[in-house]
Protein backbone atom coordinates (compact mmCIF):
# COMPACT_ATOMS: atom_id res chain seq x y z
CA UNK A 1 0.00 0.00 0.00
CA UNK A 2 2.73 2.35 1.09
CA UNK A 3 4.72 1.42 -2.01
CA UNK A 4 1.75 2.23 -4.19
CA UNK A 5 1.38 5.68 -2.68
CA UNK A 6 5.07 6.43 -3.15
CA UNK A 7 5.03 5.19 -6.68
CA UNK A 8 2.03 7.33 -7.40
CA UNK A 9 3.90 10.28 -5.91
CA UNK A 10 6.88 9.54 -8.11
CA UNK A 11 4.64 9.34 -11.15
CA UNK A 12 2.96 12.60 -10.21
CA UNK A 13 6.37 14.25 -9.93
CA UNK A 14 7.17 12.93 -13.38
CA UNK A 15 3.90 14.25 -14.76
CA UNK A 16 4.60 17.67 -13.29
CA UNK A 17 7.95 17.69 -15.06
CA UNK A 18 6.35 16.72 -18.32
CA UNK A 19 4.05 19.72 -18.08
CA UNK A 20 7.00 22.04 -17.59
CA UNK A 21 7.88 21.41 -21.22
CA UNK A 22 6.54 23.88 -23.75
CA UNK A 23 2.89 23.42 -24.54
CA UNK A 24 2.30 24.48 -28.11
CA UNK A 25 -0.54 26.90 -27.53
CA UNK A 26 0.70 28.55 -24.34
CA UNK A 27 3.30 31.07 -23.36
CA UNK A 28 6.06 28.80 -22.15
CA UNK A 29 9.60 28.83 -20.85
CA UNK A 30 12.28 27.63 -23.24
CA UNK A 31 14.19 26.09 -20.34
CA UNK A 32 11.81 25.14 -17.56
CA UNK A 33 14.36 23.56 -15.25
CA UNK A 34 17.17 25.33 -13.42
CA UNK A 35 19.29 25.29 -10.33
CA UNK A 36 19.65 28.28 -7.99
CA UNK A 37 22.01 30.88 -9.44
CA UNK A 38 22.23 32.54 -12.82
CA UNK A 39 19.22 31.84 -15.03
CA UNK A 40 18.03 33.17 -18.35
CA UNK A 41 14.27 33.05 -18.69
CA UNK A 42 13.27 32.79 -22.35
CA UNK A 43 9.53 33.12 -22.86
CA UNK A 44 8.19 31.57 -26.03
CA UNK A 45 5.16 33.27 -27.51
CA UNK A 46 3.73 31.11 -30.26
CA UNK A 47 0.48 32.87 -31.10
CA UNK A 48 -1.59 35.99 -30.56
CA UNK A 49 -5.05 36.24 -29.01
CA UNK A 50 -7.66 34.52 -31.17
CA UNK A 51 -5.93 35.53 -34.36
CA UNK A 52 -5.07 39.06 -33.29
CA UNK A 53 -1.43 40.14 -33.13
CA UNK A 54 0.27 40.48 -29.76
CA UNK A 55 0.96 44.11 -28.90
CA UNK A 56 2.27 43.87 -25.37
CA UNK A 57 3.81 41.18 -23.20
CA UNK A 58 4.28 41.62 -19.46
CA UNK A 59 6.15 39.27 -17.17
CA UNK A 60 5.21 39.43 -13.49
CA UNK A 61 8.60 38.70 -12.01
CA UNK A 62 8.39 36.29 -9.05
CA UNK A 63 10.21 37.20 -5.84
CA UNK A 64 12.53 34.21 -6.24
CA UNK A 65 13.87 35.64 -9.52
CA UNK A 66 16.29 38.37 -8.45
CA UNK A 67 18.58 40.97 -10.09
CA UNK A 68 16.47 40.78 -13.23
CA UNK A 69 17.68 42.48 -16.42
CA UNK A 70 15.47 42.39 -19.49
CA UNK A 71 16.83 42.00 -23.00
CA UNK A 72 15.62 44.82 -25.30
CA UNK A 73 14.08 43.81 -28.60
CA UNK A 74 14.29 45.73 -31.84
CA UNK A 75 10.92 47.28 -32.61
CA UNK A 76 9.69 46.86 -29.05
CA UNK A 77 9.61 49.40 -26.20
CA UNK A 78 10.67 48.25 -22.77
CA UNK A 79 8.88 49.21 -19.57
CA UNK A 80 10.23 48.20 -16.20
CA UNK A 81 8.26 48.48 -13.00
CA UNK A 82 10.38 48.47 -9.88
CA UNK A 83 9.91 48.52 -6.14
CA UNK A 84 13.12 49.99 -4.81
CA UNK A 85 15.76 48.20 -6.85
CA UNK A 86 13.66 45.05 -7.30
CA UNK A 87 12.20 44.51 -10.75
CA UNK A 88 8.53 43.52 -10.37
CA UNK A 89 7.23 43.71 -13.92
CA UNK A 90 8.79 43.91 -17.34
CA UNK A 91 6.75 44.80 -20.41
CA UNK A 92 7.62 44.79 -24.09
CA UNK A 93 5.32 46.85 -26.32
CA UNK A 94 5.38 46.30 -30.06
CA UNK A 95 3.69 43.96 -32.50
CA UNK A 96 3.86 40.24 -33.21
CA UNK A 97 1.66 38.68 -35.88
CA UNK A 98 -0.54 35.82 -34.72
CA UNK A 99 1.14 33.53 -37.26
CA UNK A 100 4.62 34.42 -36.00
CA UNK A 101 6.69 33.21 -33.11
CA UNK A 102 8.99 35.19 -30.86
CA UNK A 103 11.00 35.00 -27.67
CA UNK A 104 11.30 37.48 -24.80
CA UNK A 105 14.28 37.24 -22.50
CA UNK A 106 15.08 38.10 -18.89
CA UNK A 107 18.30 37.38 -17.14
CA UNK A 108 18.71 37.16 -13.37
CA UNK A 109 19.42 35.01 -10.38
CA UNK A 110 17.27 32.25 -8.94
CA UNK A 111 17.32 32.62 -5.16
CA UNK A 112 18.77 29.71 -3.19
CA UNK A 113 15.59 29.38 -1.12
CA UNK A 114 13.72 28.41 -4.31
CA UNK A 115 15.71 25.16 -4.45
CA UNK A 116 13.43 22.18 -4.86
CA UNK A 117 10.40 24.37 -5.61
CA UNK A 118 8.26 25.20 -8.60
CA UNK A 119 8.35 28.93 -9.40
CA UNK A 120 5.44 30.20 -11.53
CA UNK A 121 6.30 33.12 -13.83
CA UNK A 122 2.95 34.66 -14.79
CA UNK A 123 2.74 36.45 -18.12
CA UNK A 124 0.11 38.90 -19.39
CA UNK A 125 -0.35 38.87 -23.14
CA UNK A 126 -2.19 41.79 -24.68
CA UNK A 127 -3.52 42.04 -28.22
CA UNK A 128 -4.86 45.56 -28.59
CA UNK A 129 -7.79 45.70 -26.21
CA UNK A 130 -7.81 41.97 -25.57
CA UNK A 131 -5.92 40.61 -22.58
CA UNK A 132 -4.83 37.05 -21.83
CA UNK A 133 -3.44 36.32 -18.38
CA UNK A 134 -1.20 33.28 -18.30
CA UNK A 135 -1.27 33.16 -14.53
CA UNK A 136 -3.08 30.03 -13.37
CA UNK A 137 -1.18 27.76 -11.03
CA UNK A 138 -2.25 24.18 -10.34
CA UNK A 139 -3.37 23.58 -6.77
CA UNK A 140 -1.85 20.59 -4.98
CA UNK A 141 -3.36 17.48 -6.49
CA UNK A 142 -4.78 19.34 -9.45
CA UNK A 143 -3.84 18.26 -12.95
CA UNK A 144 -1.96 21.16 -14.54
CA UNK A 145 -3.34 20.01 -17.91
CA UNK A 146 -6.79 21.01 -16.69
CA UNK A 147 -5.77 24.67 -16.49
CA UNK A 148 -7.00 26.95 -19.25
CA UNK A 149 -4.24 29.55 -19.00
CA UNK A 150 -1.38 28.12 -16.98
CA UNK A 151 1.51 30.34 -15.93
CA UNK A 152 4.90 29.21 -17.21
CA UNK A 153 6.52 27.30 -14.36
CA UNK A 154 10.21 27.04 -13.61
CA UNK A 155 11.21 23.96 -11.66
CA UNK A 156 14.21 24.68 -9.50
CA UNK A 157 16.30 21.65 -8.57
CA UNK A 158 17.62 21.30 -5.07
CA UNK A 159 21.35 21.81 -4.83
CA UNK A 160 22.30 20.84 -1.33
CA UNK A 161 19.36 18.54 -0.64
CA UNK A 162 20.52 14.95 -0.94
CA UNK A 163 17.66 14.26 -3.37
CA UNK A 164 16.73 10.99 -1.71
CA UNK A 165 13.68 9.26 -3.16
CA UNK A 166 11.87 6.53 -1.24
CA UNK A 167 10.29 3.64 -3.11
CA UNK A 168 8.95 0.95 -0.85
CA UNK A 169 11.86 -0.40 1.14
CA UNK A 170 14.41 1.30 -1.08
CA UNK A 171 15.96 4.70 -0.64
CA UNK A 172 17.51 6.03 -3.83
CA UNK A 173 19.94 8.90 -3.35
CA UNK A 174 22.97 10.64 -4.87
CA UNK A 175 21.79 10.21 -8.44
CA UNK A 176 24.43 11.99 -10.48
CA UNK A 177 26.30 11.89 -13.74
CA UNK A 178 29.43 13.30 -15.24
CA UNK A 179 29.37 15.90 -17.97
CA UNK A 180 30.29 14.43 -21.34
CA UNK A 181 32.83 15.71 -23.87
CA UNK A 182 31.53 16.94 -27.22
CA UNK A 183 30.40 14.23 -29.59
CA UNK A 184 30.23 11.65 -26.81
CA UNK A 185 27.47 9.15 -27.43
CA UNK A 186 27.73 7.64 -23.96
CA UNK A 187 27.92 8.83 -20.40
CA UNK A 188 28.16 7.36 -16.95
CA UNK A 189 25.50 7.67 -14.25
CA UNK A 190 25.79 6.88 -10.58
CA UNK A 191 23.42 6.23 -7.70
CA UNK A 192 23.28 4.99 -4.13
CA UNK A 193 20.51 2.53 -3.19
CA UNK A 194 19.67 1.42 0.32
CA UNK A 195 17.40 -1.53 1.06
CA UNK A 196 15.77 -1.30 4.49
CA UNK A 197 13.38 -4.17 3.84
CA UNK A 198 13.65 -7.90 4.39
CA UNK A 199 13.76 -9.13 0.81
CA UNK A 200 16.22 -8.64 -1.99
CA UNK A 201 15.37 -6.24 -4.78
CA UNK A 202 17.19 -5.74 -8.03
CA UNK A 203 17.98 -2.70 -10.17
CA UNK A 204 17.18 -3.88 -13.68
CA UNK A 205 17.13 -0.78 -15.85
CA UNK A 206 16.05 2.80 -16.28
CA UNK A 207 15.82 5.77 -18.59
CA UNK A 208 17.38 9.19 -19.02
CA UNK A 209 15.59 12.04 -20.78
CA UNK A 210 18.65 12.78 -22.93
CA UNK A 211 19.58 9.18 -23.76
CA UNK A 212 18.06 6.69 -26.16
CA UNK A 213 18.97 3.82 -23.91
CA UNK A 214 20.22 3.02 -20.43
CA UNK A 215 22.09 -0.13 -19.44
CA UNK A 216 23.74 -1.28 -16.26
CA UNK A 217 27.43 -1.97 -16.76
CA UNK A 218 30.33 -3.11 -14.69
CA UNK A 219 33.74 -1.65 -15.30
CA UNK A 220 37.00 -2.88 -13.94
CA UNK A 221 40.69 -2.16 -14.42
CA UNK A 222 42.78 -5.28 -13.98
CA UNK A 223 46.50 -5.33 -14.79
CA UNK A 224 46.08 -1.96 -16.44
CA UNK A 225 43.37 -3.21 -18.79
CA UNK A 226 39.97 -1.56 -18.68
CA UNK A 227 37.03 -3.87 -19.25
CA UNK A 228 33.36 -3.05 -19.39
CA UNK A 229 30.48 -5.51 -19.44
CA UNK A 230 26.71 -5.12 -19.40
CA UNK A 231 25.14 -6.69 -16.32
CA UNK A 232 22.25 -8.58 -17.86
CA UNK A 233 20.92 -9.58 -14.44
CA UNK A 234 21.14 -6.04 -13.09
CA UNK A 235 22.40 -5.26 -9.62
CA UNK A 236 21.08 -7.05 -6.54
CA UNK A 237 20.31 -4.98 -3.45
CA UNK A 238 20.27 -7.38 -0.53
CA UNK A 239 18.10 -6.56 2.51
CA UNK A 240 19.91 -4.26 4.91
CA UNK A 241 22.52 -3.34 2.32
CA UNK A 242 23.54 -0.12 0.62
CA UNK A 243 24.79 -0.46 -2.91
CA UNK A 244 26.82 2.36 -4.43
CA UNK A 245 27.15 2.64 -8.19
CA UNK A 246 30.14 4.89 -8.72
CA UNK A 247 33.06 5.75 -10.98
CA UNK A 248 35.41 2.88 -11.68
CA UNK A 249 32.87 0.15 -10.98
CA UNK A 250 29.24 -0.69 -11.55
CA UNK A 251 27.51 2.21 -13.23
CA UNK A 252 24.56 3.24 -15.33
CA UNK A 253 25.58 3.58 -18.93
CA UNK A 254 23.65 6.22 -20.85
CA UNK A 255 23.73 5.38 -24.53
CA UNK A 256 22.65 7.09 -27.72
CA UNK A 257 22.92 10.49 -26.04
CA UNK A 258 20.83 12.99 -27.98
CA UNK A 259 22.88 15.86 -26.59
CA UNK A 260 25.77 16.18 -24.19
CA UNK A 261 25.37 16.25 -20.42
CA UNK A 262 26.41 19.68 -19.18
CA UNK A 263 28.06 20.53 -15.90
CA UNK A 264 25.52 22.04 -13.49
CA UNK A 265 22.35 20.83 -15.15
CA UNK A 266 19.84 18.32 -13.84
CA UNK A 267 18.45 15.65 -16.12
CA UNK A 268 15.30 13.68 -15.35
CA UNK A 269 15.30 9.91 -15.54
CA UNK A 270 13.93 6.76 -14.00
CA UNK A 271 15.34 3.69 -12.34
CA UNK A 272 13.49 0.40 -12.66
CA UNK A 273 13.54 -2.15 -9.85
CA UNK A 274 12.21 -5.69 -9.94
CA UNK A 275 10.01 -5.18 -6.87
CA UNK A 276 9.88 -1.45 -6.16
CA UNK A 277 9.02 -0.73 -9.79
CA UNK A 278 9.83 2.50 -11.59
CA UNK A 279 11.24 5.38 -9.58
CA UNK A 280 11.54 8.91 -10.99
CA UNK A 281 14.94 10.45 -10.26
CA UNK A 282 16.94 13.56 -11.13
CA UNK A 283 20.53 13.14 -12.24
CA UNK A 284 22.68 16.07 -11.20
CA UNK A 285 25.45 16.58 -13.71
CA UNK A 286 28.90 17.49 -12.50
CA UNK A 287 32.33 17.98 -14.10
CA UNK A 288 33.92 15.48 -16.48
CA UNK A 289 36.60 14.47 -14.02
CA UNK A 290 34.47 14.40 -10.86
CA UNK A 291 34.96 11.37 -8.65
CA UNK A 292 32.05 11.97 -6.31
CA UNK A 293 28.47 13.13 -6.37
CA UNK A 294 28.01 16.90 -6.37
CA UNK A 295 27.46 18.22 -2.87
CA UNK A 296 29.40 15.33 -1.36
CA UNK A 297 32.44 17.16 -0.08
CA UNK A 298 35.59 15.39 -1.14
CA UNK A 299 38.10 14.78 1.63
CA UNK A 300 40.80 16.61 -0.30
CA UNK A 301 40.49 19.74 -2.32
CA UNK A 302 38.75 20.35 -5.59
CA UNK A 303 40.27 22.10 -8.54
Amino acid at each position, binding site marked *: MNTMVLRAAALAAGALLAVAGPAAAHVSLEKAEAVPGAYMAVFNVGHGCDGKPTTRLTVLVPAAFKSVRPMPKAGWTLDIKKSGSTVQEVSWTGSLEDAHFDQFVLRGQIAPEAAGKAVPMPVIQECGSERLAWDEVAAPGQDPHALKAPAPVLRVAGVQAPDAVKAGDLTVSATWARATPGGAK*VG*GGYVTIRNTGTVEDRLIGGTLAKAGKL*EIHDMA*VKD*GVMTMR*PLAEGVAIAPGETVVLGPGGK*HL*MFMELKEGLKDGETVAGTLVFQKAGTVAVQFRVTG*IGAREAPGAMPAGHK*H
Partner: protein
Amino acid sequence: MSFVRKILWGLAAIAVAGFTLLLLFRGPLAPPTTLSSIGGPFRLTTQDGRVLSDADMKGRPFAVFFGYTFCPDVCPTTLWQLSEDLKALGKDGDRLGILFVTVDPERDTAEQLKTYLSAFDPRITGLTGERAAIDQAVRAYRVFYKKNAPPDGPVTFDHTAVVMLMDAGGRFVGTLDPEESREVQLKKLKNLLARGP
Protein backbone atom coordinates in the same frame (compact mmCIF):
# COMPACT_ATOMS: atom_id res chain seq x y z
CA MET B 1 75.27 -43.95 -4.90
CA SER B 2 78.59 -42.16 -5.01
CA PHE B 3 78.84 -43.00 -8.72
CA VAL B 4 75.58 -41.28 -9.38
CA ARG B 5 76.78 -38.36 -7.33
CA LYS B 6 79.96 -38.07 -9.42
CA ILE B 7 77.94 -38.01 -12.61
CA LEU B 8 75.68 -35.29 -11.22
CA TRP B 9 78.66 -33.18 -10.18
CA GLY B 10 80.15 -33.73 -13.61
CA LEU B 11 76.96 -32.55 -15.27
CA ALA B 12 76.83 -29.52 -13.00
CA ALA B 13 80.41 -28.62 -13.92
CA ILE B 14 79.64 -28.92 -17.61
CA ALA B 15 76.55 -26.72 -17.15
CA VAL B 16 78.53 -24.01 -15.35
CA ALA B 17 81.26 -24.12 -17.98
CA GLY B 18 78.72 -23.93 -20.77
CA PHE B 19 76.94 -21.00 -19.17
CA THR B 20 80.26 -19.18 -18.67
CA LEU B 21 81.18 -19.70 -22.29
CA LEU B 22 77.77 -18.44 -23.34
CA LEU B 23 78.28 -15.29 -21.29
CA LEU B 24 81.76 -14.79 -22.71
CA PHE B 25 80.54 -15.01 -26.26
CA ARG B 26 77.23 -13.19 -25.88
CA GLY B 27 78.31 -10.58 -23.39
CA PRO B 28 76.26 -9.89 -20.27
CA LEU B 29 72.66 -11.10 -20.12
CA ALA B 30 70.38 -8.94 -22.22
CA PRO B 31 68.61 -6.21 -20.15
CA PRO B 32 64.95 -6.86 -19.33
CA THR B 33 63.14 -6.62 -22.62
CA THR B 34 59.98 -4.99 -21.24
CA LEU B 35 61.37 -1.47 -20.85
CA SER B 36 63.37 -1.03 -24.03
CA SER B 37 60.75 -2.66 -26.22
CA ILE B 38 57.93 -0.24 -25.36
CA GLY B 39 57.63 2.35 -28.07
CA GLY B 40 58.37 2.14 -31.75
CA PRO B 41 57.19 3.16 -35.17
CA PHE B 42 53.68 4.42 -35.79
CA ARG B 43 52.06 6.56 -38.43
CA LEU B 44 48.62 7.94 -37.63
CA THR B 45 46.29 10.86 -38.36
CA THR B 46 45.56 13.64 -35.86
CA GLN B 47 42.15 15.13 -35.12
CA ASP B 48 43.11 17.91 -37.55
CA GLY B 49 43.79 15.45 -40.34
CA ARG B 50 47.58 15.78 -40.12
CA VAL B 51 49.87 12.76 -40.34
CA LEU B 52 51.87 12.19 -37.16
CA SER B 53 54.55 9.53 -36.83
CA ASP B 54 57.08 8.48 -34.22
CA ALA B 55 59.66 10.54 -36.12
CA ASP B 56 57.68 13.71 -35.30
CA MET B 57 58.04 12.94 -31.60
CA LYS B 58 61.84 12.64 -31.74
CA GLY B 59 63.43 15.07 -29.32
CA ARG B 60 60.16 15.64 -27.50
CA PRO B 61 59.00 13.91 -24.31
CA PHE B 62 55.44 12.65 -24.47
CA ALA B 63 52.69 10.73 -22.72
CA VAL B 64 50.67 8.25 -24.74
CA PHE B 65 47.59 6.19 -23.98
CA PHE B 66 44.98 4.18 -25.81
CA GLY B 67 41.21 4.41 -25.52
CA TYR B 68 38.09 5.36 -27.46
CA THR B 69 35.40 8.01 -27.28
CA PHE B 70 32.60 5.51 -26.71
CA CYS B 71 34.07 4.95 -23.25
CA PRO B 72 32.18 6.55 -20.39
CA ASP B 73 34.62 6.43 -17.55
CA VAL B 74 38.35 5.96 -17.74
CA CYS B 75 38.97 7.73 -21.06
CA PRO B 76 37.31 11.07 -20.31
CA THR B 77 38.66 10.95 -16.75
CA THR B 78 42.22 10.40 -17.95
CA LEU B 79 41.91 13.14 -20.57
CA TRP B 80 40.51 15.46 -17.94
CA GLN B 81 43.33 14.69 -15.53
CA LEU B 82 45.96 15.24 -18.21
CA SER B 83 44.28 18.55 -19.08
CA GLU B 84 44.51 19.58 -15.43
CA ASP B 85 48.18 18.53 -15.39
CA LEU B 86 48.89 20.59 -18.51
CA LYS B 87 47.16 23.56 -16.92
CA ALA B 88 49.34 23.16 -13.83
CA LEU B 89 52.48 22.85 -15.97
CA GLY B 90 51.60 26.08 -17.75
CA LYS B 91 54.04 27.03 -20.52
CA ASP B 92 56.32 24.09 -19.66
CA GLY B 93 53.47 21.87 -20.77
CA ASP B 94 53.95 23.11 -24.34
CA ARG B 95 57.06 20.93 -24.58
CA LEU B 96 55.11 17.84 -23.55
CA GLY B 97 53.29 15.81 -26.17
CA ILE B 98 50.09 14.06 -25.11
CA LEU B 99 48.83 11.42 -27.51
CA PHE B 100 45.43 9.74 -27.24
CA VAL B 101 45.27 6.83 -29.69
CA THR B 102 41.85 5.38 -30.42
CA VAL B 103 41.43 1.61 -30.60
CA ASP B 104 38.06 2.20 -32.27
CA PRO B 105 38.96 3.90 -35.59
CA GLU B 106 35.69 2.77 -37.21
CA ARG B 107 33.72 5.12 -34.97
CA ASP B 108 36.50 7.50 -33.93
CA THR B 109 37.15 9.40 -37.13
CA ALA B 110 39.40 12.47 -37.03
CA GLU B 111 36.25 14.58 -36.96
CA GLN B 112 34.79 12.67 -34.00
CA LEU B 113 38.09 13.01 -32.13
CA LYS B 114 38.15 16.73 -32.84
CA THR B 115 34.68 17.26 -31.40
CA TYR B 116 35.40 15.04 -28.42
CA LEU B 117 38.77 16.58 -27.60
CA SER B 118 37.40 20.12 -27.75
CA ALA B 119 36.33 19.55 -24.14
CA PHE B 120 39.96 19.12 -23.08
CA ASP B 121 43.30 20.92 -23.26
CA PRO B 122 44.02 21.85 -26.90
CA ARG B 123 47.57 20.50 -26.52
CA ILE B 124 46.21 16.94 -26.46
CA THR B 125 46.57 15.16 -29.80
CA GLY B 126 44.01 12.55 -30.78
CA LEU B 127 45.18 9.88 -33.22
CA THR B 128 43.24 7.61 -35.51
CA GLY B 129 43.92 5.77 -38.77
CA GLU B 130 43.32 2.56 -40.62
CA ARG B 131 42.96 -0.50 -38.41
CA ALA B 132 46.38 -1.75 -39.59
CA ALA B 133 48.01 1.54 -38.58
CA ILE B 134 46.33 1.40 -35.15
CA ASP B 135 47.53 -2.18 -34.72
CA GLN B 136 51.07 -1.12 -35.55
CA ALA B 137 50.96 1.46 -32.72
CA VAL B 138 49.31 -1.08 -30.44
CA ARG B 139 52.18 -3.51 -31.08
CA ALA B 140 54.80 -0.78 -30.70
CA TYR B 141 53.50 0.15 -27.26
CA ARG B 142 52.78 -3.43 -26.16
CA VAL B 143 49.21 -2.57 -25.27
CA PHE B 144 46.21 -4.79 -25.41
CA TYR B 145 42.76 -4.31 -26.79
CA LYS B 146 39.86 -6.58 -27.50
CA LYS B 147 36.64 -5.75 -29.30
CA ASN B 148 33.39 -6.93 -27.72
CA ALA B 149 30.37 -6.97 -29.99
CA PRO B 150 27.47 -8.56 -28.13
CA PRO B 151 24.50 -9.34 -30.41
CA ASP B 152 22.11 -7.06 -28.52
CA GLY B 153 24.44 -4.45 -27.10
CA PRO B 154 26.87 -1.75 -28.12
CA VAL B 155 30.39 -2.47 -29.31
CA THR B 156 32.87 -1.88 -26.51
CA PHE B 157 36.58 -2.42 -26.15
CA ASP B 158 38.68 -3.84 -23.37
CA HIS B 159 41.89 -1.88 -23.53
CA THR B 160 45.05 -1.02 -21.66
CA ALA B 161 44.27 2.14 -19.75
CA VAL B 162 47.79 2.97 -18.60
CA VAL B 163 49.39 6.25 -19.63
CA MET B 164 52.94 5.59 -20.80
CA LEU B 165 55.64 8.21 -20.43
CA MET B 166 58.31 8.40 -23.12
CA ASP B 167 61.38 10.63 -22.94
CA ALA B 168 62.79 12.84 -25.69
CA GLY B 169 64.95 9.95 -26.85
CA GLY B 170 61.88 7.79 -27.39
CA ARG B 171 62.64 5.65 -24.35
CA PHE B 172 59.92 4.37 -22.05
CA VAL B 173 60.42 5.83 -18.56
CA GLY B 174 57.28 4.92 -16.63
CA THR B 175 53.52 5.15 -16.40
CA LEU B 176 50.80 7.24 -14.81
CA ASP B 177 48.35 5.37 -12.66
CA PRO B 178 44.78 6.70 -12.52
CA GLU B 179 44.65 5.90 -8.82
CA GLU B 180 47.69 7.92 -7.77
CA SER B 181 47.35 11.45 -6.46
CA ARG B 182 47.44 14.53 -8.65
CA GLU B 183 50.66 15.63 -6.97
CA VAL B 184 52.43 12.37 -7.84
CA GLN B 185 51.25 12.54 -11.46
CA LEU B 186 52.42 16.10 -11.81
CA LYS B 187 55.82 15.26 -10.30
CA LYS B 188 56.24 12.42 -12.77
CA LEU B 189 55.47 14.73 -15.69
CA LYS B 190 57.87 17.38 -14.35
CA ASN B 191 60.58 14.73 -14.02
CA LEU B 192 59.91 13.64 -17.57
CA LEU B 193 60.30 17.22 -18.83
CA ALA B 194 63.49 17.64 -16.82
CA ARG B 195 65.15 14.61 -18.42
CA GLY B 196 67.68 15.27 -21.16
CA PRO B 197 67.19 13.77 -24.60
